[in-house]
C-alpha cells in the first residue's frame, strides 16, 4: 500500500494543473474518467478481488487504478467503454506491480476465500448456496477466475474478454469450460435442493 500511495501523491499536483484548463468547457476527458470511476468502482473492485483473491488487495488495486486512470485521462479518445479501459489498467497494475508481493503473502498466510463478503440474507439455504458458489469461484485458478468474473459477472462477451485479457477467444471458452466443470458439483447440489424444497 505504501508504494502505491506514494505514487498517488505524485499524481496530485500535475493533475490539478490539467483540471484548471478544462473548466467551463465541454465534457473533458478528465470529467469522463471521473464519471467512469464513480460508475464502475464496484466492477473494478470485484475484478481486483478476482485477480488477487483478497479484499484488501482489491481495495488497493481499485485506488491505484483510479489514480492511474486520472493520470492518463488525456489518453482517452472515446468516452465509450471506459469500463474495459479501467479493467485493463487494474489488471496491468496487478500483473506488473502487485502480484508478486501478494502471491508471496497469500502463500505465507494460505488465504482462504473471503466468504464473509456474502451479506447475510434472510433465507439461510440461499445464503449457504451463495457462499458455496462464492468459495468455488474464488478457488478457481487465477486465469479462470478473472475470465469467469468478466464474462459471467460483468457480462463481457467472449471476444471482449479475449481483447481485455489479450488471449484468443478459444482460450476464453476453454477457461470457462474448465470453470463450469468445477462449479458443476455445487450447482447440482443446488438443483437437488431446489427439487427437495419444492416438495417432490
Amino acid at each position, binding site marked *: 500500500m505504501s508504494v502505491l500511495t506514494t505514487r498517488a501523491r505524485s499524481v496530485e499536483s500535475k493533475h490539478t494543473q490539467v483540471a484548471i484548463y478544462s473548466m*467551463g468547457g465541454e465534457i473533458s476527458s478528465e470529467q*469522463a474518467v471521473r464519471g467512469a470511476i*464513480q460508475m464502475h468502482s464496484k466492477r473494478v473492485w470485484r475484478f481486483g478481488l478476482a485477480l488477487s483473491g483478497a479484499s484488501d488487495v482489491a481495495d488497493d488495486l481499485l485506488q491505484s487504478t483510479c*489514480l492511474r486512470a486520472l493520470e492518463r485521462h488525456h489518453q482517452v479518445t472515446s468516452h465509450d467503454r471506459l469500463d474495459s479501459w479501467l479493467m485493463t489498467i487494474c489488471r496491468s497494475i496487478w500483473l506488473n506491480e502487485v502480484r508478486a508481493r501478494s502471491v508471496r503473502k497469500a502463500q505465507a498466510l494460505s488465504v482462504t476465500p473471503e466468504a464473509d*463478503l456474502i451479506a447475510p440474507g434472510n433465507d439461510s439455504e440461499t445464503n449457504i448456496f451463495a457462499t458455496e458458489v462464492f468459495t468455488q469461484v474464488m478457488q478457481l485458478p487465477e486465469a479462470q477466475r478473472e475470465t469467469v468474473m468478466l464474462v459471467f459477472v460483468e457480462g463481457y462477451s467472449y471476444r471482449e474478454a479475449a481483447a481485455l485479457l489479450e488471449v484468443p477467444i478459444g482460450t476464453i471458452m476453454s477457461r470457462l469450460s474448465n470453470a463450469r466443470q468445477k462449479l458443476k458439483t455445487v450447482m447440482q447440489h443446488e438443483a437437488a435442493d431446489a427439487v427437495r424444497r419444492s416438495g417432490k
Partner: protein
Amino acid sequence: MKFSDETLMAYLEGKLDEAEIRAIESAVEADPALEQRLMALDPFAPVVQAVFEHVPAEAPQVDLPQPMAPATPAGGGLRLLAVAAAVAVVAVSATFWATRPEPLGWAQQAAIYQSLYVPDTIASLDNSAQTLDAQFAQAEAQLGRSLNREELEALPGMELKRAQVLSFKGKPLIQVVFADAQGQPFAFCVIRQGEGAPNKDVTQAVLSGLATATWAQDGYGYMLIGSDEQTDLSGQLDFLATSFAS
C-alpha cells in the same frame, strides 16, 4: 454449420467430445451471433452473477485528487467559471448515472440532490419557530423517531433552515438543511431503514463533489453533507454521532 440449442447446451454442460468442442469454439470465433446464443444459454452465468453482484455490499471508497483549484470567494469571472464547471460536472454525472449498471444507494441520491443546492436555495427560507414546529412534527411522524431539534438548533456554527420530508424507495428520508456562517448549505439526513438493517461505522467520502459522512444505527441511516468536497465535518459529526447514538 448450424448448432441446435441442445448441442450448445451439451457443450456448456461439458458433454461433447473433443471434435465437437473444437467445432463449436471455432464457429463462435467467426460468428458473434452464435456467441450471443451460447452466452444466453449458459446456466452458470446467472447463478454466479447473482452471487457476485452484491459484492462488495457498499460502493467502495476511492480517494481522488481535487478536480479543480479551490474556489476563491473573489467573485467575478472566476466564480462564474467555477459555477459553469460545477454545472458541467453535474451534467456529466447525470449522464453517467442515467446509464449506471447498479442502483444508487440512498446516500448517493441524497448527495446528488444536495449538490444542486446553492446559498440562494436556503437564503430566503422561512425558518420561524412556527414553521419549523410544523416541519419537525411532520418529519418526526414520518420517521417514527425524534430528530432532537434542540440539539440540531445548537449545532456549532450552523443556522437551522428547514426540515423536509423526502423518500427513497418508499422509505422516509428526512433532510434537515442548515446555513453555515458563510450562508453555504449544509445538510443532515436521516432515513428509516427498518429493523434488522446492519449498523455501520462512520464512513467519510466525497459524493457528487460534496464531503459526506454516513453511518447507521438501530435501523436508521444518518448522513452529513458539506457544502463542497473540502468541508470539514468533524465538529458536527462528533456532535451528532453523540446526540443520535441511541
